[in-house]
């Protein structure tokens, strides 16, 4: 079990680094979708007795994070007839390097962060931190609205991974509520992106700067 879990977490970290380095927005969305599917596989791996509820969680996660949300973002991208490149404020190589450094630091601290008797191995907390950092990097250094939303998605994924440690404590109602909020949030955001496109003829959020002082 731990082997599979760790393999998935390593894949998830690799996807993070890919997300920081890619210049194609479509590839970025696909990466986020793949990460969503991988995350969906985790809850049944982690719980001791696989009942209906963990399976429902897994199915819902894969459905929403892997299929529905990426499709909404792809649609937002299609509607906007603009350049489909990411346009970072800092270059791709520095982004990857920053992401790699954050991951390395998180892994180096793994021994300190994990509780002594964790059944889930050492990787969960560092992966979660690495994902949070990736999400923040995308949120702060990219100007396109869709890219920022993906940053938010990766951030949320990082919190999801941390939540694995607490599966027994977090009621499924809350887990489902978090997923629902994420879905509705991205839905509302994609509508707003549509309106930004119409009003500003661009997805560039750095143009949203008339409100000051």
């Amino acid at each position, binding site marked *: 079990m731990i082997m599979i879990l760790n393999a998935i977490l390593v894949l998830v970290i690799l996807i993070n680094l890919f997300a920081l380095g890619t210049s194609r927005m479509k590839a970025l969305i696909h990466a986020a979708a793949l990460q969503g599917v991988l995350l969906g596989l985790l809850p049944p791996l982690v719980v001791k007795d696989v009942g209906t509820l963990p399976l429902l969680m897994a199915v819902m996660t894969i459905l929403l994070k892997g299929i529905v949300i990426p499709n909404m973002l792809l649609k937002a991208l299609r509607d906007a007839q603009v350049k489909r490149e990411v346009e970072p404020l800092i270059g791709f190589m520095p982004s990857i390097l920053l992401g790699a450094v954050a991951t390395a630091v998180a892994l180096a601290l793994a021994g300190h962060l994990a509780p002594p008797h964790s059944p889930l191995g050492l990787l969960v907390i560092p992966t979660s931190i690495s994902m949070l950092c990736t999400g923040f990097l995308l*949120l702060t250094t990219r100007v396109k*609205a869709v890219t920022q939303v993906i940053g938010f998605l990766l951030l949320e994924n990082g919190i999801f991974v941390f939540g694995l440690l607490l599966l027994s404590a977090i009621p499924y109602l*809350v887990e489902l509520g*978090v997923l*629902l*909020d994420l879905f509705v949030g991205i839905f*509302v955001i994609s509508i707003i992106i549509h309106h930004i496109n119409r009003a500003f003829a661009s997805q560039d959020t750095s143009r*949203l700067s008339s*409100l000051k002082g």
Partner: protein
Amino acid sequence: MDVLALILVCPVAAALAALIPSNRWRPWILPAAAVVHLILVAVILLGGGATAKVPGAPTTGSISVATTMAALPHTGQSFAQKAAAHHSGGIIFSDWLGLDPPGRVVLLLASVLFVACAFYTVGYLRDHMDHLNRLFCVCFLAFLGAMTLVICTNNLGLMWVAMEATTLSSAPLIYFKHTKKSIEATWKYLLLCSVGIALALLGSFFVAYAAIVHGLTPSLRIADLLRQAPAMDKRWLEAGFVLLLVGYGTKMGLAPMHSWLPDAHGESPSPVSAMFSGALISTAFLMVVRSQHILHVAGDGAYASRLLILLGLLSMAFAAIFMVGQKDLKRMLAYSSVEHMGILALGLGIGGIALLGAMLHVLTNGFTKGSLFLSVGNIDRAYGSKTIPEVRGAVRRLPLSGTVFLLGFLAITGSPPFGPFISELIILYGTFMAGHFLIAAAFLGLLLIIFIGMGRTVLTATQGSVPAAGRRNHFRDGILSGGPVLACFLIVLLLGLYIPPPVWGLLHHAAHYLEVKP
């Protein structure tokens, strides 16, 4: 069961609003739902034993308040024991619902303020008949419902879900006017608050994880967390608190995470701004209060206090800088909200009597902001503008709204005989009692700068003669536009002159619940 009914009122009303076909009559569902909501809140608050009187509590005037405060530490113990016997820290109806004493204060504020805003909205939407208002009505009700759920649940996870729901349901409200500026405000609001709140979820997880580290059973229920807090891992608990403070602090508008707030408050329709500034950010403050309570019970209150005082003063300083020379009346009020959230954080951080002041300030600030935003809404409708060169002579143009705006300015900057004067005085008194003389001096200095900065803008807007452009429009104060403004203002005045005993009971109950370790 009452709480369950309270939570169900809003979704039912929202569904009804979605079904009503008439654009003209649909908005009336808002006041109807608001009144039902308020009646249920009254039943819950009066029926739940929260009216238990503190000896000698109902007092008026600053000096007698201060003496009552000084007497409190003695009466506090027995009162807290009584409260614990009755409630065991809040009424628990089921595994999910429960109202803690600080929640009662915010619930009262949100419900009363929504009644005023709902009636105002009916008139406001009548002036905007060209806009379809179905989405607006549904979202406004869903917004109140989500806020009620944040207040009435006892699970940190469900609180988060409901808090994010307030963000999502209120985003379309900001976008109601469909202007470029309102898109910008909506985008910033959605993204900043969603990311901020995501951190609060991580913080909630950290707090739960702090139990695992020491081999306890993790839980997100407030009651479990409070029981286990002393045995939890301090480092994870502190990290969790920082994330909760940053997360809910973003929603609350604490500097330096406040940048969404002036935009959202400035661009949304005035009744929405009033709900944001009066109720929503107070609900976010409630979440900070609950987070601090966990840390306090864990014996780490000093750590939380330092952070809260720092952010509180920083928010006041930011607000002071941006309020001096502010031309946009609604943005000025928004920065005033940042300031007052700073005051609340300061009061919470200092604790003791200041905590009671902070609880009172939640009410006084909320109602004053309600009356201010609604009166600026009327000014905006009369002049077709909310910025300074266009708006002049508001007292002449709109005798009621202009006067309330002027008096509301005096109230919000802490002049007697209005409510905020009493609450700020109690916070200041608490700061001196706790021996924080430098903080008290900074607090007073910033209040003075804000008074001067805000005063210049408000006096220019209200005094003088009305420019020709401001007379063209035939808007006058009516029952639906002026009534809610006056109602909120009278509450502010009442809170400054005489605080009704049941309200005192609520406030004392809340302050003791937060002070006394179980």
